[in-house]
């Protein structure tokens, strides 16, 4: 192996060449190009090099700061709720004594393959002031008066959290189900014979097997939520009063809604990149520490 001839090396490059070329064109080039773009200032197609001017603008931009705060709020509140819910549902649906498991699994998984726009429109009408949700809750006497889901800054955030949780819980649940089915049933039988209480079985047998999945789903959900765009664009359009404005939606509006400011939009994109890197790093560190007590 040490003496790989020039011909072997060439064969290797020929095999990897097409893939590398595509990666360069579609991944490496856009990344570097957008990094260069983030140093440009100007409106529309009139660019000029601005150095760190865009980064300075970030510190002065109230909308950006609001979007950043909103994104982080959604992240901190929604991801843990969804992961916990996905885990609970997976554990419940893994119980062999449950009838109609396949049906429930499909039903819970279905939201993430439905049409995004269709479900957004449906959510918008369901959660309207005189929509079916408010009327239902009033009929049950849970509410005295309707909740202004779409027009209140707090409830709009709740609505977005409900929407993305509805859409992505089933998707994450599949990973938990797969991990649960990898646990050998006889381990639980041994625990029954050993007289291990249910909670200890969950804590010492089930949960440790799920830790890698918790890490995986947390990282992917964190990335997903940091890039949250679809729901806020289709249900609330970032409103009311930018209460649901997210970084991705702001990037979109900077590029295509207002007077295009591609350079600044690229800078905001890099904020997401940096956030994803930092958060993923901490999540991996946390997981590693838990695995080696």
């Amino acid at each position: 192996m040490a003496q790989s001839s020039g011909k072997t090396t060439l064969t290797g490059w020929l095999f990897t060449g097409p893939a590398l070329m595509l990666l360069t064109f579609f991944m490496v080039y856009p990344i570097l190009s957008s990094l260069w773009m983030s140093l440009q200032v100007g409106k529309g197609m009139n660019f000029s090099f601005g150095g760190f001017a865009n980064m300075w603008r970030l510190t002065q931009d109230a909308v950006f700061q609001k979007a950043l705060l909103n994104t982080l709020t959604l992240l901190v509140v929604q991801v843990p709720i969804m992961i916990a819910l996905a885990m609970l549902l997976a554990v419940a649906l893994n119980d062999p004594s449950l009838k109609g498991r396949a049906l429930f699994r499909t039903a819970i998984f279905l939201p993430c393959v439905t049409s995004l726009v269709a479900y957004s429109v449906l959510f918008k009408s369901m959660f309207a002031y005189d929509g079916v949700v408010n009327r239902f809750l009033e009929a049950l006497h849970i509410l005295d008066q309707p909740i202004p889901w779409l027009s209140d800054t707090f409830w709009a955030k709740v609505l977005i959290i409900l929407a993305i949780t509805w859409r992505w819980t089933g998707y994450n649940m599949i990973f938990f189900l797969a991990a649960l089915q990898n646990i050998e049933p006889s381990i639980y039988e041994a625990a029954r014979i050993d007289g291990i209480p249910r909670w200890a079985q969950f804590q010492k047998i089930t949960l440790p097997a799920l830790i890698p999945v918790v890490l995986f789903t947390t990282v992917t959900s964190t990335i997903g939520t940091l890039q949250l765009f679809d729901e806020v664009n289709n249900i609330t359009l970032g409103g009311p009063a930018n209460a649901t404005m997210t970084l991705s939606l702001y990037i979109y509006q900077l590029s295509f809604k207002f007077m295009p400011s591609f350079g600044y939009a690229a800078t905001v994109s890099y904020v997401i990149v940096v956030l994803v890197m930092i958060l993923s790093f901490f999540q991996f560190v946390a997981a590693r520490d838990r695995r080696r007590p």
Partner: protein
Amino acid sequence: MTGLKLSNVRKTYGVLEVIKDVSLEVKPKEFVVFVGPSGCGKSTLLRMIAGLEKITAGDLEIGGKRMNEVEPSKRGIAMVFQSYALYPHLTVRENMGFALRFAGVPKNEIIKQVDAAAQTLELGALMDRRPGELSGGQRQRVAIGRAIVRKPEVFLFDEPLSNLDAELRVHMRIELARLHKSLAATVIYVTHDQVEAMTLADKIVVMRNGLISQVGSPLDVYDNPDNMFVAGFIGSPKINFIKGVVDGVSKSGLTVVLPGYQDAKVTFATKNSSVPVGDSVTVGLRPQHFNTTGKMKFKLNVELVEHLGGESFVYAGNGSGDLITVATQEGRGLKSGQKFDAHIDPAKALLFDANGQRVR
């Protein structure tokens, strides 16, 4: 120590009956082996004793107490699984002490008991490892250790050696036999391997289709099988079954003629006269019982010889396609195609009627 009693036990899944009316008594300190082909219900029966499967009908008593509805952990049993079923995220030490932690045993007492079991099983160097870092044999020892620590009245083993390689299996078999002696515990052991059954058991329970075919000591079951199934299942290589017809019945016994083998005749000293002349019967001849001096002679042609070193298995036929297996110490020179005379003492032959039941 405690014995165990099964009375008319049944298990059904819907319309499928997998255990059909099993009654059995296991004495204290006895090593009982359930053996049978896969699907015979032996593992199900063990799991019913453990409490992992509900008993549809009948009674299970352990130490004189009815245990049908008692939780597995309260039955005074410990079980070793084929897959070891160790807790993957706990160390060997934690695995062995886990049950005691929830049984209210004080910490220093747990340490003492775990260390004692570890010493018995020579696990000392592995105590801080996780199951994933152990070999199959080591995992099995940990699983046994986990069972010992609980000081159960009855040990249940569900094919504990099936996942080990051949050499390790023999080694663990000897260790298990030793352990049984030193613990003086009641053991119920499930296997499909008749060699394990023969070597370990005080009492063998041969099962078939959810029923007990025969219960007895290993040699008893080997020498004196109740039916063709038991005769065929116990003993390796497998017993030879030769078709015959009853030729004559007299007070002294029963004569059977073997049409495939030059109309050779065998007389069985039996007082059983329920088999009339002309009935088809089966004669069972163990490969090990053939010799060079026996009165009965089979003129055969060698088809295949397997040399095991110490002995050879000769597969020889009469031209009809049926082969007779002969185990012999003097088969080294034999080659296929050669003529071969197999002798056997007629007293060693076993007779079965048309239904496969033994005629004694």
